[in-house]
């Protein structure tokens, strides 16, 4: 039922996307020039970076090749907390035109800054992101990422406007209004987190929306890890194409990378972001194809250059050329983060494994949360799954069967016993539309 399949190679080529197709030597040359300028700028203006480079006996001039980036010190999230709020800025406030901040669920948020040039770069990578997903000037883009300090809303907004599309700046929340607007305004694309969209699917269907009768054809979903199972659920259910977009505030916001029409890995906008894969334990370089932590260096950012930022996102480089023709390289979709792994009874578990196990059970629902507790010194894991009209009936037996099937599937995947609890819709905590997948109550 995939309708109106369009292809970004044919009629929707956006001029801004030209850089996606640069010949590799030109691209590497641009990267090196920009890397040298970025390191110079950071060394000159950011005491933390200068101090660390001095400690290694490094000067900006020591960066002569792209591989020399591996000799530079890493930057980690706590560096941004420690220098809160403005300590990592490399531009005077007179040149900073915008601040954003992370949601800061624990303690102080992280503050990020943009000069006008930074905003222009951000807009450029977002235009290229939308173009890669096959969107163009005739699209009506409903932007349900939160507007405000969160980078998602404004990042997508500027990009969609510059694309020439019609933007509906609806921001997050109020699901019934989202569905009403989607239907009445004829939105052709939706921007939000994948977990929020799966929630909108339920709301829309309860409001009588028939997917093939509305023009929605694409979703630009990001800001949280999700799985192929979730993509299949969304696409099979609604007939739209679900694209994974990647980004993080510390680097620029959304628009660091996105999937093209092949939906086989995310192209990173390498002219603005230098990517490395490192072993998260040893920090050693991981060769192309090997899995490891994504480390990013900004190549154009002025207000807040980031040198070797540890993303904690686990992925690998897909070195093979993409059939879409883009020369900027791809990374595999990010299903897990090195810091969202938890250990229960000696077993390493990633939430994405649990998600895949839940989605493997027929007709199940993708709203879930893992709750870890300790009872009598023994770790317990419970998976809470929101009940929807699809799986609910009037018989107790059906729900008990579903619980048992879900538990079995998760146990089969992880090799440990887990409890499954069915809960009411919308009872699982969400922040900025991002689902909170793990609630660890074991300490305290």
């Amino acid at each position, binding site marked *: 039922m995939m309708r109106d399949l369009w292809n970004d190679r044919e009629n929707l080529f956006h001029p801004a996307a030209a850089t996606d197709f640069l010949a590799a030597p030109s691209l590497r040359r641009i990267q090196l020039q920009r890397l040298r300028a970025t390191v110079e700028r950071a060394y000159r203006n950011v005491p933390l970076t200068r101090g660390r480079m001095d400690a290694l006996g490094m000067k900006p001039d020591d960066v002569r090749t792209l591989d020399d980036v591996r000799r530079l010190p890493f930057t980690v999230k706590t560096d941004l907390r420690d220098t809160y709020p403005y300590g990592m800025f490399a531009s005077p406030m007179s040149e900073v035109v915008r601040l954003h901040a992370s949601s800061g669920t624990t303690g102080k948020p992280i503050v990020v800054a943009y000069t006008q040039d930074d905003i222009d770069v951000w807009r450029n990578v977002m235009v290229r992101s939308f173009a890669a997903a096959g969107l163009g000037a005739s699209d009506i883009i409903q932007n349900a990422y939160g507007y405000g300090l969160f980078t998602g809303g404004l990042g997508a907004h500027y990009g969609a406007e510059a694309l020439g599309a019609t933007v509906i700046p609806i921001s997050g929340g109020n699901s019934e209004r989202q569905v009403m607007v989607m239907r009445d305004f004829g939105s052709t694309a939706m921007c939000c987190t994948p977990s929020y969209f799966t929630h909108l699917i339920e709301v829309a269907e*309860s409001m009588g929306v028939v997917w093939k009768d509305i023009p929605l054809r694409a979703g630009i979903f990001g800001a949280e890890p999700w799985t192929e199972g979730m993509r299949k659920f969304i696409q099979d259910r609604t007939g739209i194409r679900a694209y994974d977009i990647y980004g993080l505030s510390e680097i620029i916001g959304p628009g660091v990378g996105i999937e093209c029409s092949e939906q086989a890995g995310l192209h990173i906008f390498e002219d603005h972001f230098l990517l490395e894969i490192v072993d998260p334990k040893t920090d050693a370089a991981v060769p192309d194809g090997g899995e490891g932590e994504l480390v990013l260096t900004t190549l154009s950012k002025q207000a807040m250059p980031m040198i070797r930022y540890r993303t904690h996102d686990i992925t690998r480089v897909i070195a093979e050329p993409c059939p879409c023709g883009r020369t900027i390289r791809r990374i595999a979709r990010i299903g897990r983060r090195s810091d969202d792994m938890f250990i229960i009874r000696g077993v390493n578990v990633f939430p994405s494994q649990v998600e895949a196990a839940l989605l493997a059970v027929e007709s199940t629902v993708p709203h879930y949360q893992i709750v870890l507790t300790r009872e009598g010194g023994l770790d317990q894991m419970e998976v809470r799954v929101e*009940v*929807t*009209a699809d799986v*609910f*009936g*009037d*018989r*107790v037996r059906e*729900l*008990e069967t579903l*619980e048992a099937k879900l538990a079995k599937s998760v146990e089969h995947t992880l090799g440990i016993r887990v409890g499954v*609890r*069915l*809960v*009411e*819709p*919308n*009872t699982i905590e969400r922040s900025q539309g991002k689902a909170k997948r793990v609630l660890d109550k074991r300490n305290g």
Partner: protein
Amino acid sequence: MKLTQLSVFLENRPGRLRELCETLSGEGINITTLSLADTEKFGILRLIVKDVDRARAALGAKGFVVKTSSVLAVEVSDEPGGLARILAVAEKGGLSVEYMYAFTIKSGGRGILVFRFDDTDKAIAALQAAKVNVLSSVDLFARV
């Protein structure tokens, strides 16, 4: 003959049933009868109301998961053996009772029970053939 029953998923959480009742009372909807099936972790509330569509919409808007299913309102003599007779009819017809519960209303020495059979159409035929009165929703709500 079929009666539409609403079933609502309920977490075992304080105040949840009250919120449901308040949602309905806020809409001026009276619960004619109900039954709560519960397990250790969750419950299913089954409701008979006159205005099914409005009740469903009101509950849906409050975030409850609501499903409808077909049940039968069956007149049962309020005397020893009354229910046994109905069950014998069902058994003979090869039907199984998924669950049942009662109305508080009575008329002329007869009680009314709500039955959920595995096969509603077959149950109507079997009961009517045995001269058991299966009430239509019009008849039922006329007595409420």
